């Protein structure tokens, strides 16, 4: 199962837990698995069939360029980070 790091702004959904294990072969499947365990998780991360623009998903240190379709491995690390507008 992938290891998922939960940003502080979403930890109200996970009873304060920062690191979780979740099954799934894509970022979308991982989110769906977390939504089953922590209802409301998907709504906070997604808008329709895409990750919300204010968030960026990372898989093994790389941005998930395929969004919800980004492949996730058994040993992958997944992070969801708030996007910031730099200058």
């Amino acid at each position, binding site marked *: 199962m992938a290891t998922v790091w939960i940003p502080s702004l979403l930890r109200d959904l996970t009873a304060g837990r920062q690191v979780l294990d979740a099954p799934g072969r894509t970022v979308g499947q991982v989110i769906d698995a977390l939504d089953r365990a922590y209802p409301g998780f998907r709504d906070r991360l997604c808008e329709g069939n895409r990750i919300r623009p204010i968030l960026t998903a990372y898989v093994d240190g790389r941005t998930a360029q395929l969004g919800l379709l980004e492949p996730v491995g058994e040993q992958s690390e997944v992070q969801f980070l708030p996007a910031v507008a730099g*200058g």
Partner: protein
Amino acid sequence: MGPYRAPGSTPASFAGEAVVDELAEKIGMDPLAFRLKNCAQDGTRRIVGAVHRDIAGIDVLKAAQAHEHYSAPLGGPNRGRGVAFAYWGNWGAESSSTISVNGDGTVSLLLGSVDITGTRTSLAMQAAEALGLALDQVKPTVADTDAIGYTQVSAGSRTTMASGVSVVKAAEDVIAQMCARAAMLWSVPVESVSYDQGTFATSARATERIGFVELAGQLNQTGGPITGVGNVNVPEWGGTFGAHIADVEVDPETGKVTVLRYTAVQDVGTAIHPGQVEGQMQGGATQGIGWALYEGYAYDDEGQLLNPTLLDYKQPTALDVPSIETVLIEDPYPKHPFGVRGVGETPIVPPPGALANAIYRATGARMDELPMTPTHILEQMGVI
């Protein structure tokens, strides 16, 4: 949060670097040595879960420690020296470029990135290097949105890095197409054609060679114009660290801070155009000094904004800031063709922390808000 240089990081660093300074003082340790002892390295996990890779924070701290500024005498009363150390992660994302080969051997480089910091030059330099041409053979133009593929903002410390990847990809496309033309001219397999520093050759016949300029002049007789395309979405990037050293003098009667000397050290990756990199470091540090000492909204008792225009909203000028010394630590980022890291945002992060720590050493008073105005400094000193 709106667009800003290293958004959110500067005030957080101001608070954090004051705490780090207090910890070092508490155990009687040199503030840079304390940071060096606790510095993130490759493999260190960040608080958000991401793992640092290909970073050079330790090299930055060692260079700051070794810099003559750090051990120079302060030379007078009411003076103090402070340091701060900071990180910013930068960005990659989408960039588009095209390179068209002209009949005279020049190339027209069309860029999706808007040029706000001289990136036309740093991107043209990367195109010239990738094509094995002289810089004056590359004619860069910033395209409008109808003329080029999608390109992310010219911000986020991404332009020279991510658009550089795009430019290199366009150059590789040009070279591949021109190799095919050379193969056609020589009636040899394209796989046998190679290109090195302006000259095409084939392993099929050692006598066959043709220069880029000469082949460019034959494009219309060998199939027509060539345009290389570089549309990329860069998934990884190299963050950078900055260590700043600040000397200040604080007038004990007025609370006015004079910045006497300022040095910025940063791991900049490969400095494609060192002058532009220095400019980013000096500009970022100056903006950070403004945030530290001057920039803030003032309201009267009825909530009326008292400084709504740039006539009243103080920003630093050349009269307020010394010539900022820069130290470029060139630690190439291994996942960029030329080792580029974004450099523009990191230098705004350390200045308030460095200045607050310098003010503490000059006055014995810790600062707990920005900007550190003369009034606030006198309040913290217990003068008013």
